[in-house]
């Protein structure tokens, strides 16, 4: 009896590993630093993770189709540089610059989709190509100089509405919209179908190409929004802007329970929690004034732990699912 109770508890904890980890991280940092659990700090974490959440939301669409987009960090740079130049050199108003940036993101996403679906290049290579193209373009346009953005621009990043900073609102809108698209539209449901098995989805009459193009376009759009939010917060665009952000975004999506094999996963709450968790770890480490040399070790350790738990969980699931699998064909 005792063992079965423990087993049940273990299973329950495994099934909710991300939540458990979330709680552990907050408890540990909360104990080590009294400031960590203050409302203001939690809000700070939300503000800081806004960019990542937006970026990872777009990435979720792509990963559900069993694809990957390595170019989002570079798209962020191009969008930031071009919209920054538009403000600095051409004095365009924000009402023009923001839509311009978003359209740019859409275009880059569409280019990714074209090379994947027209030229039949696998997503990894196609978006890796775009990674270099977009980053090169960004550096070319900025002449690899940092852009310092005017006050009117950074206003976006800091103004609170109802006490909550604008980036959090934007993030909330993106997450909400993403969740609605995934769960309550035909497109979203077909996206899962394509991710599970593109051939079967096609046989079932789904226009697979359109679904996949859509996912990369949405991912590009999210990268653009993330870029605008991040530049507004930073007040500057450096040539390293957005570098390696694609990896953090992918990590957040996978932490949030979306399978890299496609067909499963959610933006809300999955990706949202994954992204917040990553940011809380970084934030918490600063709060507890740890030796800077240990940062990388701790972050890597926690990520490793999560992946380990996830792997154990998958093994268990596979053993469980072995039963219906055999039943279906014995």
């Amino acid at each position, binding site marked *: 009896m005792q063992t079965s109770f423990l087993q049940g508890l273990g299973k329950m904890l495994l099934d909710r590993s991300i939540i458990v980890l979330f709680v552990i991280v907050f408890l540990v940092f909360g104990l080590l630093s009294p400031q960590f659990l203050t409302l203001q*700090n939690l809000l700070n974490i939300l503000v800081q993770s806004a*960019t990542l959440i937006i970026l990872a939301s777009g990435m979720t669409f792509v990963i559900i189709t069993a694809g990957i987009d390595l170019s989002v960090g570079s798209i962020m740079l191009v969008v930031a540089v071009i919209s920054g130049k538009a403000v600095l050199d051409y004095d365009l108003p924000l009402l023009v610059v923001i839509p311009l940036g978003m359209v740019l993101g859409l275009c880059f996403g569409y280019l990714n989709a074209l090379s994947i679906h027209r030229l039949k290049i696998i997503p990894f290579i196609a978006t890796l190509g775009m990674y270099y193209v977009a980053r090169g373009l960004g550096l070319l346009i900025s002449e*690899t*100089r940092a852009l310092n*953005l005017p006050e009117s621009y950074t206003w976006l990043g800091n103004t609170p509405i109802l006490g909550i900073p604008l980036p959090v609102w934007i993030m909330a809108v993106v997450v909400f919209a993403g969740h609605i698209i995934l769960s309550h539209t035909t497109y979203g449901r077909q996206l899962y179908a394509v991710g599970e098995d593109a051939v079967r989805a096609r046989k079932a009459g789904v226009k697979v190409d359109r679904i996949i193009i859509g996912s990369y376009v949405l991912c590009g759009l999210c990268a653009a929004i993330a870029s605008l939010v991040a530049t507004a917060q930073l007040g*500057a665009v*450096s040539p390293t802007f957005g570098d390696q952000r694609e990896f953090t975004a992918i990590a957040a999506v996978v932490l949030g329970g979306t399978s890299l094999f496609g067909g499963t996963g959610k933006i809300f709450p999955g990706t949202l929690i994954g992204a917040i968790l990553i*940011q809380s770890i*970084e934030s918490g480490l600063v709060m507890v004034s740890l030796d800077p*040399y240990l940062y990388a070790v701790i972050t890597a350790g926690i990520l490793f732990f999560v992946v380990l738990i996830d792997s154990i969980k998958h093994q268990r699931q596979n053993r469980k699912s072995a039963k219906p699998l055999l039943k279906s064909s014995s």
Partner: protein
Amino acid sequence: MKQNCSIIYRLWPCLVLFPLLWCCQPKDDRLTIGVSFETLQTEYWVTSINAIEAACEKHNIRFLSAVSNGDANRQFEQVNNFISRGVDGIIIAPKDGNTVIPVIKAANRANIPIVLYNRSPAKDIGQYVTVAANNYDIAFHTTKYLCELARQSGRQWKALELIGNLGDINAVERSKGFNAAIAQYPNDVEVVAAVPTEWNQEKALAGTTNALQAHPDIDFIFSASDFLIPPIVSALKNADKYHPIGHEKHVLFGAFDGDATAYQLLKEGYLDADGVQDVFFECEASVQAVVDILKGNPPEKVLVDPGFVIHTKNLEAMAPKMWGAAADHK
């Protein structure tokens, strides 16, 4: 077979013409210097490479350049390329202290003088000249100036340090200089937080915000590079700590490099002091070193740029030497 012959047949004029053209090229008896930069990702590097070009022009030297975008391997190839093109001297801003060692060896084998700009090798091997700012001293004196201001106030100040990349010797030296200066003022300044930024603006923003959250009493900031200033300013504004000198909530603020943003903030009275690397001196010294070696009187192995501290009180006098102020003083 026949096809092949006919192609060679048609191409023979080219085969003859190329060497001819080569020989007929106007004879250029000017010296040639190959300049290889690891990156052009901040204004500092862009200003440097432009200053080296200007120095070459002054000495009537031909200037070749290559940028390896953070890839040590590519940098090695680029230098080999210079060697095979028969340059007379090499100036290199290396990726890091270790990867530059084979580059030095290759240049030594080809008997071409090599000057290391801004970074020293990890081991003292072979013939080379290093031109580098004294990161330790400049950081030390900048911090010391800030500490003096702190002491005059008669109360204790809480300091935040933004560290660069812990793998970069310059960043480490600057951090050591900062801490050595603070150690002399134990009663006046206490370091309560240190944030490793990996030379990344987003990390600097998040780190500063978190540190200000954990220690709301921080009123003294030192940044290892000017290029991190925009995100720091954003974070200060959010915490209502961004006020000019003289204001009761002013945060003592020092940084390092001497770029245009720093100059601007010094003029506006938000930045108290900036450690300046004398780019024009360093570039001139690098080119001069190549010329001297070729003439047969090699300089010291290490040419130190003592740099200087610029602050609100000596701004008028020192600005012409500050590279970030060059636009104002042409």
